[in-house]
């Protein structure tokens, strides 16, 4: 009797704990590839590497980072990049998705063609965009170098100096290289955003649209009150993706401009790369990584709050 009840209780325990064991491998993987590196980075941000090994330096890495002139400047460049990159990509993605949805013919072909940028590595895409504007022999040089189009001496993207800032030291308007970098990055991210929005557009129930039309809604009203609210969750997902990709991506900057000309495209992610990988200042790089992570969280929280999109509605 006792043995039977024990066997029952073991079975019950096993049944109850089964989900725990099933998700255990995933939890272990997450602990190894996400949680441990995050804690290690936090630990690293208070250390400095010496010949003898790691040495605790308190908040010195943060102090040094804030004191570096390029830090403040790179924040400005990052803001420029993020704003330009997200607005251009989202707007174009929205327009292209709309066009693709409304024209059924050949949309499969268009989507296939549209996906080409997405399958190219950003380093390669950056190199190709760079070659297009190389002074002297770049493919676009005849246009860009034309003084009538770009007075007084034409435009050399990779060497053009930054315009005089309008707001103190904040780097606005952005340099031609920054604008070009934004365009190249948007070009690459566009397929993903377009497809995301297109998928959302296709889930809008036709009954809702028909009802609105019967009620006399015009095209603009349909878009404003039906389409946009219904695809907003997808737009927010796209926005998250763009913000995180824009904040953390370094490949395109590395291969297209290398932070230059001068420091005009020196964004935070490139600064992080330089600190960690070129100067091997691991402690400072970790401190900057923590700052970037905090900014990422704040941006995401801000977007969620502004758009009032909750997990439930997504």
């Amino acid at each position, binding site marked *: 009797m006792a043995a039977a009840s024990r066997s029952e209780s073991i079975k019950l325990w096993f049944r109850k704990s089964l989900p725990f064991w099933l998700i255990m491998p995933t939890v272990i993987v997450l602990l190894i590839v996400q949680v441990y590196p995050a804690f290690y980075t936090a630990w690293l941000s208070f250390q400095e*590497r010496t010949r003898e090994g790691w040495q605790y330096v308190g908040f010195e890495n943060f102090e040094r980072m804030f004191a570096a002139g390029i830090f403040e400047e790179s924040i400005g460049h990052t803001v420029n990049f993020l704003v330009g990159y997200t607005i251009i990509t989202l707007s174009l993605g929205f327009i292209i998705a709309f066009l693709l949805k409304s024209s059924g013919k050949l949309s499969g072909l268009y989507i296939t063609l549209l996906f080409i940028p997405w399958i190219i590595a950003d380093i390669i895409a950056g190199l190709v965009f760079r070659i297009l504007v190389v002074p002297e022999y770049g493919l676009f040089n005849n246009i860009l170098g034309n003084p009538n189009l770009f007075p007084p001496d034409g435009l050399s993207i990779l060497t053009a100096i930054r315009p005089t800032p309008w707001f103190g030291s904040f780097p606005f308007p952005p340099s031609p290289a920054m604008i070009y970098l934004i365009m190249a990055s948007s070009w690459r991210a566009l397929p993903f955003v377009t497809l995301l929005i297109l998928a959302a557009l296709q889930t809008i129930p036709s009954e809702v649209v028909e009802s609105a039309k019967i009620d006399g809604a015009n095209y603009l009203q349909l878009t404003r009150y039906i389409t946009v609210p219904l695809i907003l969750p997808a737009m927010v997902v796209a926005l998250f993706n763009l913000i995180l990709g824009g904040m953390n991506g370094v490949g395109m900057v590395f291969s297209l401009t290398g932070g230059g000309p001068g420091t005009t495209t020196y964004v935070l992610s490139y600064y992080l790369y330089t600190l960690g990988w070129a100067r091997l200042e691991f402690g400072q790089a970790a401190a900057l990584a923590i700052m970037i992570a905090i900014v990422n969280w704040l941006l995401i929280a801000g977007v969620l709050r502004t758009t009032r999109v909750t997990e439930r509605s997504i």
Partner: protein
Amino acid sequence: MNKKLKVIFSILLVALFAVTVSACGGADDVAMVAELEAKLAEAEAAAAAAVSAEDLEAAQAALADAQAALDAASMVEEEFLTWYQYDETNEDPASDERVGNEYLRNSIPEFNAAYEGTYNWVNRPKAWDTMYQELVAAVIAGNTVPDVIEMGSQWIPLTVKNGAVQDLRSWAEQQEWFADLDASAVASCTGLDGGLYCIPVAIRPHLVYVWADHYPDGFPDTPEEFMTEAARLKEEGVYAWTYFGSTAYGGSGASRMVWSLISSFGGEYDDGDGNLYLTSPETIAAVEFLRETVALGYNPETVFAGGFLEEDSFKDASAGAIPTGLFGYRYINPLTAPNGTAYAKGSSDDMLDAIAAGDVILDHMFAPEGTTPGCGNDVAGFSIPVGARNLEAAYAYIGWLMTEEQNPKFVLGPGAGYPALTTMLDSEEFAIPFYQEAGEALSGSVCTPYYGTLENRELAAELIMNSVYKLVKEDPTADIFTVFSEAEAEYNAGN
């Protein structure tokens, strides 16, 4: 699970087991050697304990057999691992690193033949601009590091600070070739603590490659003469010079033409006490001069574009001169001379041929009256990383490189400089027009490493180059003293 799946799973498991067992082959070798050593010990004991002559004979035969078996088993070649920026498997004649690639292609079999049965040289190619960072990361993470790594002297502080390379002084001083090493080359490999962190093999000074037809009277000796010549060339539609003026690659431009110019004007980057010092009148005068040449359009725009695009203007002779490292001949090709002669092998031979033909001449940087021309200098050598597994092979390799037969091959190939072994320069390999020209060009100048006493060279180079770029290109009206003072303050505050 159905039967088919079970069979597939079983086969996969057996395959995995087989792979695991074969991967443990190395351990089997070790076990076999240990077993044979035990047998040898037994045979030795039996020989020692033998009473009769017959016993002794049998024991000696057993001993000989055991020794032979052990020798045969010990003949397993040890892997000797290097990290070079070259790749012996890359046979692309258009590769930027074709000279180094070819060098390795020839050297690896030679080394392996010389050490047959002992070492097997395996090279792992690495990107030149991330090789040392990878080394540091590998040392910190406890991963496999090479037994020997190609080392540029400018990387010594970074690798030493991170505990990535070994102090070789005590070993090196016992070697015959050590006394023959150029003192300045040894100094370049010496850390601030006095340790010797690389063995110098090639010294690479900076000089100016000049198209003779564009400068029929030779490259100017003074800045004033240069401005006159530059104005003349501009009228002819030719840029006076081209150089690496970009901020890319962590400000490496600070070690190139910019340093040659500033040091020729008598300026410096450090105060001799580890601080950044850019506000001397001489340094400011050099930057004022450079700013003027840029404003007058004496250089192509590619100078500031990065990616070594500036070299193209020298290759097609649209620029008259290019100040760069002696090693530049490896990369600046193919060439078309102003008179139309094409040097188009697409290898380092192009520049050597152009020099031999007199189309290209080598010269030193110009300097104001009463000042000795300066230039940059760095050393190419080899380091042994901390954690290298095969120290004996590493020592053997460095010793092999220092032989009369091997040393010129490296120096003339990827080393692309002067031999650090002073007596080596007398050998016939170096009796070519290129070295004669370079020797004459450099005889009138003093070449020094750009970093002087600066410890954080990466930060210094970036700050210097960002400042110079801002002053000469971005904001030519900015006050030089103010911009340089800001850079000094930032560097010196962190040191």
